[in-house]
Structure formats: C-alpha cells, structure tokens
C-alpha cells in the first residue's frame, strides 16, 4: 500500500505549486488576475502534455478542442438561460455540451488523423481546425463569423452580482481544478499500462504493435483525455469568463503554439514540466505585456528557437538529470 502511494509522490510538488498560486491570488490584493493567467497556461500545458508528451505526436490543431469547449458553454448559456428553473444547471449543461462537442471531434480525429504519422498528422490536425472554423463562418452556423454574445443572457439568468462572481472568481477557480485534474490523470497514466503503452508508441510504434499493444486504442485514450481537458479550459476560461465567442478568436493556432512553448520550456512528457513552463511563460508574458506591450511575440519567437536547439529537454528534464540518485528523485517526474 505504501508502495502505491509513494508512486504518486511526484504529484506533491505539482499540487503544492497550485496551492501556493491559489493562496497568493486569493489573499494578496490585485494578484488574482495574474494567478488566473498562470493557472490557464499550466492547465493547458498539462492537458496538452498528456497526448503530445506521452505519444510524441504533434497536434497543432489542439486549439480545436479549446474552441469547441468554448462553443459548448456558449451554446448551453445562450439556449438554456431562458429556462429559469434550471438555475446554475445551465452551466452544467454548457459543460456537458463542451465535453460532448470535444469528444465528437476527438473521436472523429482519432479515427482519421491518428492513422497518420509525423508531419502528415500535424498537417491533418491544422486542416481540421481551419476547416471547422471556416465552415462555421461559411455555413453561418452558431452565428457564423459574428459569433455568439451571451453576456446578456448570463445577466438575465443570474443577476449582476452572481455573474460578477462567476466570471471573476469561479471561472478561474475551475481552471485550477482542471489543472489539478490534468496533473492527476497525467500521473495516473504514467504509472499504469497506458503510460507504458504510450512510451512504446512514442519510441517505436511498429514494434509496439508486435509486442501486443493496441496502439490505436491507447493513442485514442490519450487524445480524448487531452482534448476533453482542453475543452474544459475553453468552456470556463473563455466561454463563461468572457461571455462571447467568435470563430476568429478561438480557432487560432497561436494558442496551440503557446501550449507547445509551455510544455517545451518545462520539459515534454514530464509531470512537473507544464507547471514550471506555465509559470515561466505566463510570468514573462505578463511582464512583457507591461514593459513592452505588443512585442511579446518578437521576443518569444527567438526564445522558442533557442530552447529547441540548446535545451530540448526543458527545465525539468535538466532537473531530473541533476537529481538522479538523490533522495529528491522520487518527487520529480
């Protein structure tokens, strides 16, 4: 029993980091906004890492899930806010719709795109994302390019006071929850057969099949998990928090790239990596936005290149190497 628990020790630093962030945000005036931004990046990095870090597949279209999550929540609020008796239940419906849309697209993508490898897979995922975005705009579904604005509906359903609390606290708080959940699932997969199967897939997919691994099944599990978590972040941090959605705002590949930067900075395939990466990225973005607004990307682009060339293992990869053989080893994964 002790053995089983100790296998999950690497979660301790992760949860500790989230807790500290939360406490700082909650008790120090004026800090909540920044902490929420950090949680957002940690959650996305953690979620994306479950698929990309473990399988080595590059999904440039990951933002599709975040976008569909946003749409799910938006649809839930827009269409169900008229039923007053539903109360806070409309948010539950929104979340369910978000997860439903994301799993639909994840399964479709898994069926089609996961049969491709490497560059072909990456291209296919970009294709799905763009195809979906322009289809929404072109066929004018869900408001087409004008999107959906449902802040009013939200106000009507809950009143100013509650909406204020929802958008400034609970939306961000649920991102924290998702980040923690993502970390837990990540750890759990690492320690279960899923993790071993995915390692085999990452290293040599054909040999993995010969070893008896149903590669499609395990890739789909990781893909779906990662997609659903992303949809959750979208539903809360974009849908509920902002009160509107435009296709041109959400199906944006740049957000996938942000996830990639977060994960790479911290260390792909590690548990603590996305947290460290999220903190570094979020803080520097926040800070750069203050001191030189509009030039963040100009600074980040060369940084990405430098990391890739000079430190592809990321911070946690380096840290793990340092700590190998010490007492602390069991806490870092």
């Amino acid at each position: 029993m002790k053995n089983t628990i100790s296998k999950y020790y690497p979660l301790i630093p992760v949860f500790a980091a989230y807790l500290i962030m939360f406490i700082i945000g909650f008790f120090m005036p004026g800090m909540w906004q920044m902490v929420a931004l950090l949680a957002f990046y940690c959650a996305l990095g953690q979620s994306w890492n479950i698929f990309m870090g473990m399988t080595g597949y590059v999904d440039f279209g990951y933002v599709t899930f975040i976008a569909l999550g946003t749409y799910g929540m938006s649809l839930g609020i827009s269409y169900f806010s008229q039923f007053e008796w539903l109360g806070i239940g409309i948010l539950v419906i929104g979340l369910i719709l978000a997860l439903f849309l994301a799993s639909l697209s994840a399964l479709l993508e898994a069926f089609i795109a996961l049969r491709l490898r490497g560059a072909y897979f990456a291209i296919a995922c970009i294709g799905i994302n763009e195809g979906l975005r322009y289809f929404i705009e072109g066929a004018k579904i869900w408001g087409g390019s004008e999107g959906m604005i449902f802040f009013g509906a939200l106000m009507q359903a809950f009143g100013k006071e509650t909406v204020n609390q929802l958008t400034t606290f609970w939306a961000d708080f649920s991102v924290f929850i998702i980040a923690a959940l993502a970390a837990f699932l990540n750890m759990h997969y690492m320690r279960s057969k899923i993790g071993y199967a995915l390692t085999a897939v990452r290293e040599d997919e054909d040999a993995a099949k010969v070893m008896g691994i149903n590669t499609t099944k395990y890739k789909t599990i990781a893909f779906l998990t990662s997609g659903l978590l992303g949809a959750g972040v979208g539903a809360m941090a974009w849908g509920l928090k902002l009160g509107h959605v435009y296709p041109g705002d959400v199906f944006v590949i740049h957000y996938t790239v942000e996830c990639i930067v977060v994960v790479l900075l911290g260390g792909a395939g590690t548990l603590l990596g996305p947290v460290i990466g999220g903190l570094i990225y979020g803080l520097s973005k926040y800070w750069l936005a203050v001191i030189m607004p509009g030039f963040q990307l100009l600074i980040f682009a060369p940084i990405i290149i430098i990391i890739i060339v000079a430190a592809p293992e990321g911070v946690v990869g380096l840290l793990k190497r340092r700590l190998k053989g010490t007492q602390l080893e069991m806490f870092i994964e």
Partner: protein
Amino acid sequence: MIFTLLAGNLTHGLLLGGVYGLATMGLSLIFGVINVVNVGHGQFIMVGAFVTLTMFTTLGLSPVVSIPVALILGMALGFFFFYTVMRRLIRAPELTSLLATFAMGILLEEIAKLIFGADFRGYNWGVGRITLPITTIPMSKVYAFIGSIVIALFLYFWFSKTRLGTAIRAVIEDNEGATVCGVNVGWIYALSFAIGIGLTVMSGVLLTMFIPVGINPYMGGGYTLKAFVIAVLGGLTSPYGAFFAGLIFGLIENGAYTLFALIPGVAPFPLTVSLAFWMLFFLLLVKPTGLLGK
C-alpha cells in the same frame, strides 16, 4: 450567364493557380530533401510581398525587378536559417523542426510589423487589362502567370540538366544511397533549403498581383495552409507535382467560390476556404502520398 461567370472565374483561378503552384514548390522541395515541413512557409511569401511593395512605392521599381531581388534575399534568409537552426534539427524528433519553423514564421511576422506596421496595404502596377469574351483580366495577373511558368520551367531544366540539380533529386529519392555516390549531402541540404525559401519569397512577388490591398504582416498563415493542401495534392515531396496541384487548386478554389455564391444564406468565401481543408483531410485519408505522387 452562369457559365460565362464560371468560365471567367476559372480563368482567374488558373492564373492564380500558377502562382500557387510556384509558391508550393519550395515547400515540397524542402520536405523532399530534409524531411522538414516548413510550418512558417507563408511568412516567407509575405516577405516577398513586402519586398515588392517597398521597391514599388519607395523606389518606383517595377515588380519585375523585385523577382531577382526576392530570390537573392530569400536564399540569403534560407542559408541563414539553415546554418543557425535547421542544420541542428535534421536528425532530431519531428516536433522540434515543426516548432522551429513555426517560430521562424512568427519572427518574420513580428519583424515585418515592426518595420511596416499592421495595416493592409497594396500598390497598383498599371499595365492595362485584356478583355476576353468571358471576362476582363488585368495584364499584371497574366504576367504573374507567365512568370511562374517560366520560373517553374527553368527549375525543371536546372533539376534535370545540371549536376547539382541531379544531386538534389538523388537526395530526394534516397538519402543514404546519395551519400554513398559521393554527393555532399550537407551542402545539398543547405542549398535546397535556401532554394526552397528563395522560390517561396519569389512567389510572394507574383502573388501581389492578385491581392490589390492584401499585403500585411499576418497574411502568410493562410497561404501556409493552402500550400499544405496543394503539396499533399501534389505528393508532398515532388516540386513539379506541387506546381500542377497548384493549378488544380486555383481552379477548384475559384470554381467552388462561384458555385457557393449561388447558395443563399451562406458566406461563400469562408466556405471555399473550408472546402480546401476538407479536401486536404480527405486526401490524407485516402492517399497520404498525394494524388499526383507515386
């Protein structure tokens, strides 16, 4: 009536398709030789567009002059990025080269924004227009089409008749075999990357003839995606395949637009763009090696 319209639009599509084809040859060349998908491809097209705009508006030089300038600048950029970054990533996992090229693209966008600002801009190369029974076409588009064909043909002969060109084809065919046959693969990598980027920047010059006010730092992303569709259509590693696929793509794009415009209650432009991606998706599914590929 509708047929005249369709025929007219298809003519425009064919002309644009030639430029699309040229714009994709570089992507295929780079993928064929160093197995890297240049995710920052479109941003190099954007560089070509700004070169043309600047030379035209500040120096009063015709876009014809911009063509060699763009080629040289593109190749210089290609060599620069190759020796600073790409060289180290050829054997690395795919993820890293995808990210590196993406980051290059962002870097170019942001530098362009720093220099030119984020506005949409354009210029007017007044070289008259030609009237056909079905439509009227600005001569600039015709010249762009001719230009892309001339460049593609030139490349074709260069590939098949020169020693260096043959060596590049050998590397595309078989990496290890080529090393044995005494081809200096390292130099071939660098050169192909540079030529690929050079071609792409050059195609940006020709593209400006089709986008009267569409030049801006963020114009590239859309072309990257179109280039993917075209490259996959053409077999991904074959520059000639890419050229023909470009022609086909231009036709489909304009044809589909004409038809979508007839459907009430939809926005034909985004629908056309989305069609391209469903096409890509379908292609990858049924024949990942490309329709025109082996």
